[in-house]
């Protein structure tokens, strides 16, 4: 026999409430997540459109209205959904629109550029070094179904107005341009390294919305794929090597030189200096108020 315990609630009350709640959940599940997890994928679109039509949050900078090719909810999508739920949903969300830490795949550039898995498969098979993305050992059939599901979810996401969970450009418009300029030139210390008419001229043409904000707060992703962190290593023989930091732990230091050649040394045998221009951004994290960030965003968005 089961014994049910729950502070200050009797057995009967719990059982009744529990039954009621199940009905409530079922009745109230006009939610894309619940629906996506169910077998009835055809209902997803309907529900999402209903839910978002009340929202009225169109993109501030809607892209030129190119027709979005329809992605059908095929058997492969349904099979891929199960692969996704088992392996990917924890980080990327059940509907691929983002979960714990994992990015929203429905707005991913890589997914948008993928054709039949040519971009997706290598990432799934190998993982992504330097990120939390692990490698998965999936069969070709599973991979094919998986990419079908991801493309289906991207289609659903692209055809819904406003957007659930993702951050829209229109969401990041609460700052004050003047206050942002003041902060940029003053307390923020941005002008120590940057110039609105120099390196940051036209930044708002190159990045927008969340991507711009993330880059503003931590640009350590590098510039055109080149690591911004530099290292100079002097060997015991007095030879000096300079390049982009390629690896560093307590025991090994590695760099890629201007010739794209990798070199590494045991840390205890050499002297080295690491120069990280991004550190100034990291040092600012404890200093920003949310208002500072919103104001800075407002200002950067004028640099077109």
């Amino acid at each position: 026999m089961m014994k049910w315990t729950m502070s200050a609630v009797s057995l009967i009350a719990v059982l009744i409430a529990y039954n009621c709640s199940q009905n409530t959940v079922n009745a109230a599940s006009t939610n894309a997540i619940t629906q996506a997890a169910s077998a009835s994928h055809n209902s997803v679109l309907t529900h999402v459109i209903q839910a978002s039509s009340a929202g009225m949050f169109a993109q501030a900078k809607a892209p030129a209205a190119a027709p979005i090719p329809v992605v059908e909810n095929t058997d492969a999508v349904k099979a891929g959904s199960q692969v996704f739920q088992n392996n990917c949903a924890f980080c990327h969300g059940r509907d691929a629109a983002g979960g714990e830490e994992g990015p929203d795949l429905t707005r991913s550039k890589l997914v948008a550029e993928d054709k039949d898995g040519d971009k997706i498969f290598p990432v799934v098979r190998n993982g992504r070094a330097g990120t939390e993305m692990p490698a998965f050992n999936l069969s070709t059939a599973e991979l094919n179904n998986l990419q079908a599901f991801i493309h289906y979810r991207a289609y659903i996401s692209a055809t819904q107005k406003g957007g659930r969970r993702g951050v829209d450009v229109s969401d990041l418009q609460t700052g004050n341009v003047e206050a942002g300029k003041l902060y940029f030139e003053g307390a923020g210390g941005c002008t120590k390294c940057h110039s609105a008419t120099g390196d940051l001229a036209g930044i708002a043409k190159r990045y927008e919305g969340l991507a711009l904000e993330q880059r503003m707060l931590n640009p350590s992703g590098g510039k055109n794929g080149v690591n911004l962190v530099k290292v100079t290593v002097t060997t015991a023989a007095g030879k000096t090597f300079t390049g982009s930091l390629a690896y560093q732990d307590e025991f090994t230091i590695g760099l890629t030189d201007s010739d794209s050649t990798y070199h590494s040394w045991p840390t205890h045998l050499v002297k080295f200096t690491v120069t990280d221009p991004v550190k100034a951004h990291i040092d600012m994290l404890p200093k920003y108020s949310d208002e500072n960030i919103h104001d800075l965003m407002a200002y950067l968005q004028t640099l077109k």
Partner: protein
Amino acid sequence: MKFLQSSLILTLVTVGIFTMPQQVVGQNLNESQLLHPTTDIWPTHNGDYSGRRHSILTQINPTNVKDLALAWAFQTNQTATIKSSPLLVDGILYLTVPDNVWAVDARSGHMLWRYTYPPNKGDHIGQRGVAMYKGYIYFLGPDAHLLKLDAKDGKVIWNVVVADSAKGYWTTMAPLVIRNHIIVGVSGDMDNLPGIIRSIDADTGQSQWVWYATPPAGTPNTATGGPAWVTGTYDPDLNLTYWGTGNPTPVLQGSSRPGDNLYTCSIVALDPDTGKLKWAFQPSPHDTHDWDAVETPILIDGTVAGKPRKLLAQASRNGYFFVLDRTDGKDILTTTFGPTNWALGIDKKGQPIPNPEKDPARDGRLIAPEESGMNNYRSSSFDPKTGLFIVDAHPSWSIYFTKPEDGTYGWAGADYGLWGKAVIEAIDYHTGKVRWSRDFGTGGASAGVLTTDSGLTFTGDNHGNALALSTTDGKTLWHAGLGQGIASSPTTYMLDGRQYMLTSSGGVLFSFALPE
């Protein structure tokens, strides 16, 4: 070595230890061994009921640890990462990844049997180990089923449902055995579901009791959630079992669930025989940042102002370090162990007061720590000699968003990590001050922690190096690059007069020992 209370068992086991080869005792584990584990077993997720992950072994010491070398490696041949601490009983290790259990010879690393769980629809995010009682292994499938396996060959004895995976529950944890209670918690915060802790009869598989963290879904103005997904601890003298519970749902949107949202993000003390709540303390009242308070509540028999006290300490995901009186849950110390910016202060109970301005918002809120927290499922260790609580900390920053159209179901928002680093910190439990810390650089957290009586701290960095540090000052005394990140917590045992240290990297289990 400590010996056993029950006179009948004493006789049997004594015979086993002293006069017969260990195999005669044969894949068995009784209550006395669980209460007083000897150094030749690691019979529970944490090695013992206290959760302190400290060993009295001293063969490997700060002087000779530089010679530590590979004894053997066990390849799971899986891409799934090992997150479990292998149990060790009678010279056999029991190791898991999702859907898989292996029995491995602890002396040689060769496989004795493998059990594979059939394909299922549960979330496969991780498997954190098995429990053992008598001659049986208790294993949770991803789909929230508990299996009882014969430890001799991995054959299924029974398979019972812990929670309904179709509703969105899944399971990853190592169960906790207290007498004939197999106590399990669940995962599942992608749906609005009450977290539960369930006790299941070790023999029959019958459910004995269920404790609910929250009211049922649909109860107005309340949270769901609070899943307990990391193995709890147990004080046999008080007969109380201690568990941390997870975050409330909806996760990032708190408007539909005003108030503290008890008992989510809480440390709870339950009677293991009835499931009745004795006391609760809430590290994160009204959490809106996914900061489960599930990190192991470590039991410390220590002192406060010179007087002996029964204490409990947790380095919580939200960045706060708590020391409580484990008899009544009263707070003794509350402090932070890294950058936090989300609380207005500490209330009379010693709980942080969340700042409503730091709830996720449409235009974003800058938050420290990030969602994966200052600490997570990897184990901390308490070293009684130095009084140090050693944790793999993750100072970090992120931005959190939510808006009304994200709804009030499941995740209900979005968050993005900005930056983080891995730091091993040694916190003095008397003062909460960090006595030493080791910075392992940008990225995710490093590895779980084990301390030993010889003054060693075994852990890892976030590049995949296994490390032995000096417990007194944190200096690196030994390292071995294992090739991938270390997602588990190290363990140790002594067999045939040789001390082994186990750790893992990716899907490989490594055993290190001093050269013979």
